[in-house]
């Protein structure tokens, strides 16, 4: 009820990357990859902690994780890691006011200088690097 009265979009609106261009997609991917990496980190600590239970427990865990599914997940983690780092550097510099354009007289049709081609290029490069790293990772993990 309160939600309806205040007409906030809520999590569904926050997490909808389809309406406001590439920068909003990057925001969404950064969140998703950050949460994905956090989940992986927790899982990874759990996985590697098996070693304190001795060799048998460790080998059992490896059996569980060194599978096609395990390698597909790892490939995804590689992609998330590369995108999150590369785009994270763009975002951190942006947060400091670097690369966000210079104020000036706005001219019709008022294209925002902060949504400039360098920012967009960095986002595309982050996506491309993640894709390349995933392809390489998949070839190593899943190849013969």
């Amino acid at each position: 009820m309160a939600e309806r009265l205040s007409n906030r979009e809520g999590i569904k609106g926050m997490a909808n990357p389809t309406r406001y261009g590439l920068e909003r997609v990057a925001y969404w991917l950064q969140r998703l990859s950050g949460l994905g990496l956090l989940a992986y980190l927790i899982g990874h600590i759990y996985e590697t902690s098996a070693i304190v239970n001795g060799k048998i427990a460790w080998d059992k865990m490896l059996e569980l994780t060194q599978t096609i599914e395990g390698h597909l997940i790892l490939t995804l983690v590689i992609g998330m890691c590369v995108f999150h780092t590369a785009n994270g550097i763009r975002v951190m510099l942006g947060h400091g006011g670097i690369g966000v354009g210079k104020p000036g007289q706005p001219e019709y049709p008022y294209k925002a200088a902060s949504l400039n081609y360098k920012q967009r290029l960095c986002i595309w490069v982050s996506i491309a690097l993640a894709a390349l790293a995933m392809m390489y990772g998949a070839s190593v993990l899943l190849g013969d």
Partner: protein
Amino acid sequence: MAVVEAPKPSEESNTKTSSQPNTITLRIARSNPSEGQEPSFSEFQIPVQKWTTVLEAILYVKQNFDHSVAVRYSCRQASCGSCGMKINGRPALACYTKVSELNSNVITVEPMNNFPIIRDLAVDFKQLISNHKKMKPFIIREDSEVTPESKEFIQTPQDLEKFLQFSYCIKCGLCNSACPTMATDTSFIGPQGLAQAYRYVADNRDKGKDDRLKIVDDSHGIWRCHFAGSCSQVCPKGVDPAMAIQLLRGYLLGFRK
């Protein structure tokens, strides 16, 4: 009494813009939350011209079909900031959006998100105005340019360029409506307010930088901006609030002095 005729499709415009339909369906979101009225849509068939704006289409409904549609507007020329609404899913000024540029025979107008609905398309600006005021939107300094012994504060064109675009904000709230943080954080200052904090910080007549930095350095302040840029995507005046916010944060992060 002057009779205002609604735009009628003319022969000429039919031939010139054959791809453009001259009757569209306008779907208007109706609700009255304080009366417990559930949201619904009213649909109307509206004749349009190439130049008909969404606001004109809504006013056509009010004149010809249903006067009870609640909509706020004033200037009809993107200057007063009253007519912000969601048009086919994106926040925009109704008076500044032509039906023809939407490339659709069906236009859906809804109240802007992240603002409480008063009725139909009219939303409540209390939070935006109060956050705007919290930013101290005025020049802060000891001396004055209006006392008899003082002179006006001189600014060069370069000084002016540093804040001019941010001063074009018409408080329409489109940025707050598009912002992903605003979607979930009920206490966030919002891009409108943060951009205005920077507008005054960047003004070399102003001495209130430290005051304002303290205000925005809050858990629901500038740190909640993730530079998703949606505010700047929808701003109709070229304010570019996303740029203002990052430049402002540059001070707090030590990138700028």
